[in-house]
């Protein structure tokens, strides 16, 4: 890439790419914030519920928009290092896989399950809802940043990759919090739900108390 190309890409990012990033967030994040939004709603006065949820979303979105700059810079740097999209995709997939098995990822996922106490009155309530959005957003970025690189590189199958990442991120949140460890983690619970439901429909239990060897 020429110097003018680099500059052009760098200038383009805050404008068009930021808008694209916002669209991507708007498409991918709603399933991930249903539970914390419900928490913000239920723990607020009836006349403050909409406001609390709005402030949560603003805080959450602000973190992701900030993170978006960093992720796009990373994407740009990778593209500068190698113009081959497949190489970039392989690099980001490797980073995502490494992050996926790390204790750090679990640390972030555990914090995605947090439901903190929220102040109820006045400015303190506004701050609490916004802070909850910030902290939840930070945990969410920590858990998903590597996965979010994938759709940035998958130019040919951008929408499909985005959908796959969204489903994966949603499914892995179904698992409970867990101790920190190096191990594979993913949408296991979602697969177990599907398997259990299939088993129940194909081979329902016959007796009230069944003993097994």
């Amino acid at each position, binding site marked *: 890439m020429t110097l003018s190309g680099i500059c052009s890409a760098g200038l383009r990012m805050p404008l068009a790419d930021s808008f694209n990033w916002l669209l991507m967030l708007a498409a991918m994040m709603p399933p991930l914030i249903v539970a914390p939004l419900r928490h913000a709603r239920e723990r607020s*006065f009836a*006349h403050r519920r909409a406001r609390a949820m709005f402030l949560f979303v603003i805080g959450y979105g602000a973190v992701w928009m900030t993170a978006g700059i960093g992720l796009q810079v990373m994407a740009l740097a990778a593209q500068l290092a190698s113009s081959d999209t497949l190489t970039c995709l392989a690099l980001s997939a490797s980073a995502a896989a490494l992050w996926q098995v790390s204790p750090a990822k679990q640390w972030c996922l555990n914090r995605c399950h*947090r439901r903190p106490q929220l102040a*109820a009155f006045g400015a303190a309530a506004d701050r609490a809802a916004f802070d909850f959005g910030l902290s939840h957003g930070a945990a969410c970025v920590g858990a998903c940043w590597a996965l979010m690189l994938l759709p940035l590189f998958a130019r040919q199958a951008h929408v499909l990759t985005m959908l796959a990442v969204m489903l994966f991120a949603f499914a892995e949140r179904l698992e*409970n*919090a867990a101790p920190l460890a190096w191990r594979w983690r993913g949408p296991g619970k979602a697969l177990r739900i599907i398997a259990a439901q299939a088993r129940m429909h194909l081979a329902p239990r016959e007796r009230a*108390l069944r*003993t097994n060897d």
Partner: protein
Amino acid sequence: MANTRQNVWALGSDWADPILWYARGVKAMKARALNDRISWRFYAAIHGIFPPLWQQYGYLRPTDTIPSTADRNAYWNQCQHGSWYFLPWHRGYLIAFEAVIRDAVVALGGPGDWALPYWNYFKQEGLPPAFASANWPDGTGDNPLFVQQRYGPNNDGNVFVPLSEVNMNALGEPDFEGVASGGSPGFGGVATGFAHGGRIHGAIETQPHDWVHGLVGGGLSPQEPGLMSDPDTAGLDPIFWLHHANIDRLWEVWRQNPATHVDPSKANWINGPASTGGHAFILPMPGGQSLTYTPGEMSNLSALGYTYDDLSAPPSPLVARLERLGVDVTEATAVARRTAMAKTVELLGANTESIRLSGTEARTSIALDPAARSRLSTNLNEAATRSAAPDRVFLNLENVRGISDATAFNVYINVPEGENPANHPDHLAGSVALFGVRKASAADDKHAGDGLTYVLDISSIIDRLHLSGAIDAGQLHVLLVPRNPVATEAQISIGRISVFRQSN
């Protein structure tokens, strides 16, 4: 023929046959190795195990052969708390345990119809004597029913459950399933997946279940809880099983009084957590077998071949409440019988800062939202002329964290300044024992570190404040009085104390 579980106080003598055979069965289980699935310690670990505490108390020794990873993953750390699975999981646990003990009893020449007695602490105050003595009835030592780490309500080794501190108010809950949004947690708990320690305890779980655990176990320090005080050691104490038989009995009492009380009909409850990708309920049985079960299979006690010698119910607290609000006695009874859980829940008030509980008391004030308070007042004013139940009001102790499960405290509202709260039982909002708080406060474990949330029905207190006009002051004064002074090292904190209104 059904197995009948009897009140331990009605067996005729301290060491009546059912207790004597229980002791012999416990001794046989205790003689088995840790990695034997039907050993005493394996069974206790099914409820929960915290290796450092087990090592500290000598229940986990360097010479022990640890069970295989497959066995530990399948069986250990299963107990369901803070969940609508609390009652059915423990019913299965009791049935399987009883089968293991009965098998040992029969092998020793005992009766084939042996059944686990239950401890009815609503009838008599003390610990059943067979559990309080280090000796067998002939005076020889090594009574397997006795444990050293059972410190009692005053942490002095004198174990009893004060009659004035336990109640069956949970039986008045109209619905089994509660809500997690600040309203009633229901009789049996809120909907969860597999929950080895959920956030919100159901009404029967908070009182009497947790409270009895806390009072019986006690603790010498945050690092030295009584066995019964902590879910990770509770199953090691032989009195645990009689306590849970009583809780199991109360489930059946609730189901029968009145007949409108029914268990959840949702598929997730009936089919259990395994149907939604969670851990299956599985327990070892005699003869190398195992029992897998679902909550739906635990629902009908008589179909399981069990009953209790006493399934009578106390008077409905809702009837008393309706009368207090001016509803005619006949109408009050009718309303109480057709009342289902109201589902609309809204925040009514909250305190402004999290509080630390240490020493002998903690205080905070709750400001009420004027609009929500007005809606409540209107509803209570109309109670006498409506044919529906009035709004209910719940105090929430949110995000209770700490490292000492042995912490137990009473919660009072608006105790007159300078007065001893013990002299004002009508201001008692409820009693809370922090059974499970250590695990629930760990950020990087199966919980997210949010701690526990307790929901106490304060409708009666609010009724009185309403009738006297004191509710119009817009503030509630909350006083927390620990059963024993709380050490600072226990790190007990309460994130927020709030009040919710639940209406039709």
